[in-house]
């Protein structure tokens, strides 16, 4: 059992299979929402699943000048980085499957892996569009990564811990940390758009400029793994923000004490799913309402209008804690 349970957790639930399935569902919600905003009907519910199967069943092409190993491994790194981080995020109870001091840092760094993988994949595709896309991925990372990190540190300082599970548990009293770190929350949401490379920050993938950027040469199953990595990243990023700012699987007013353990787990899961969908709703809304901006505009804007508010919020929290602590 000692071996089987962790394997099950990593590969089936809440790890790989669950994440992929839920990610496919959420990407349908996303596409449907955008279609509705744009006055269209939108795709049927099984559409992302059909897309995945179709991509898997397509021919696989590796361009002659591409670095074969890098080309093949890059999507896997992206997917693995995202899926691995779900283990440390609380999903159905305020405690994750595995919690240790500093797991917040580990998760934040695991979530930067897709960006680096995308850079490598694009760079080693040996394609001019992919190369430009790859450099854009890195430039964009410089823009959103620091504000995202700073925004995540806000609740960490407020809760006095670097463990996501500890931070979530600190919100058990019903006081969500969004109240202590509203600016950090806003910054984290906007930085998440950058992290997921969605409009207005879909600069590395800009279809009309550089075709699709880094994954332009990818076909078939390798493209499918990229898509899986991106849609899992949506889930994990949203779950992380929910855990840090919105009490994770916790909802005030629900009689947790009166429920049996299995029911609290299910309720917690549903609550978290609703929060994730709300965050995705925000992402879709942003995508529908804005145009894509340029890379240098993005980097400057992010460091200025995301970096400074996040810093200010962090400073205020640190100052208040010091006063209270003294």
């Amino acid at each position, binding site marked *: 059992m000692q071996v089987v349970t*962790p394997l099950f957790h990593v590969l089936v639930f809440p790890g790989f299979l669950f994440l992929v399935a839920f990610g496919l569902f959420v990407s349908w919600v996303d596409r449907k929402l955008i279609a509705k905003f744009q006055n269209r009907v939108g795709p049927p519910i099984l559409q992302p699943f059909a897309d995945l199967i179709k991509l898997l069943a*397509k021919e696989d092409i590796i361009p002659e000048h591409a670095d074969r190993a890098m080309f093949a491994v890059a999507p896997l790194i992206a997917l693995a980085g995202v899926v691995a981080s779900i283990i440390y995020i609380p999903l159905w109870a305020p405690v994750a499957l595995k919690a240790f001091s500093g797991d917040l840092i580990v998760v934040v760094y695991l979530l930067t892996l897709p960006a680096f993988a995308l850079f490598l994949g694009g760079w080693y595709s040996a394609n001019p569009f992919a190369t430009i896309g790859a450099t854009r991925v890195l430039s964009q990372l410089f823009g959103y990564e620091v504000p995202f990190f700073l925004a995540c540190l806000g609740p960490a300082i407020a809760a006095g811990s670097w463990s996501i599970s500890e931070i979530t548990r600190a919100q058990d009293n019903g006081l969500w940390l969004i109240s202590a770190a509203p600016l950090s929350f806003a910054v984290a949401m906007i930085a998440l758009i950058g992290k997921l490379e969605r409009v207005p920050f879909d600069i590395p993938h800009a279809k009309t400029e550089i075709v699709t950027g880094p994954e332009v040469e990818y076909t078939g199953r390798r493209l*499918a793994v990229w898509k899986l990595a991106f849609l899992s990243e949506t889930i994990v990023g949203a779950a992380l923000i929910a855990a840090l700012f919105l009490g994770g699987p916790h909802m005030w007013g629900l009689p947790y004490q009166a429920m049996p353990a299995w029911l609290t787990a299910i309720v917690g899961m549903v609550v978290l799913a609703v929060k994730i969908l709300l965050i995705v709703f925000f992402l879709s809304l942003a995508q529908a309402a804005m145009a894509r901006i340029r890379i240098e505009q993005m980097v400057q804007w992010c460091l200025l209008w995301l970096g400074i508010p996040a810093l200010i919020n962090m400073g205020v929290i640190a100052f208040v804690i010091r006063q209270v602590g003294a």
Partner: protein
Amino acid sequence: MTASAVLYHPVVVFTLCMMAGWGVYALGRALAPASRVIGGKLKTYACGENVEGESFPTAYHLYHAAFIFTLLDVVALVLGTVTGTAIVWMVAAYLLVGLIAIVILFKD
């Protein structure tokens, strides 16, 4: 260390996930038709035109952003590892560094 502690270690989890991704590849290999190389299939895609060259290195001009990113990221990592009351001073110092960095960035 128990088996579960080892299996939940980030490195092990990451490796397991890589293997799961490899499983997706294997599934794809089973479903997809065999690759037929005809004509310019393996050529670099460049809108239908022919491009010469095996790699396409490009210039980079956002070094100041890269510099600030590295600076702040490393300091943030240091911050993440301190505990106790020292954190308040660390945050203050960090704020200072951050503000200086942003001033440098927007100087011109």
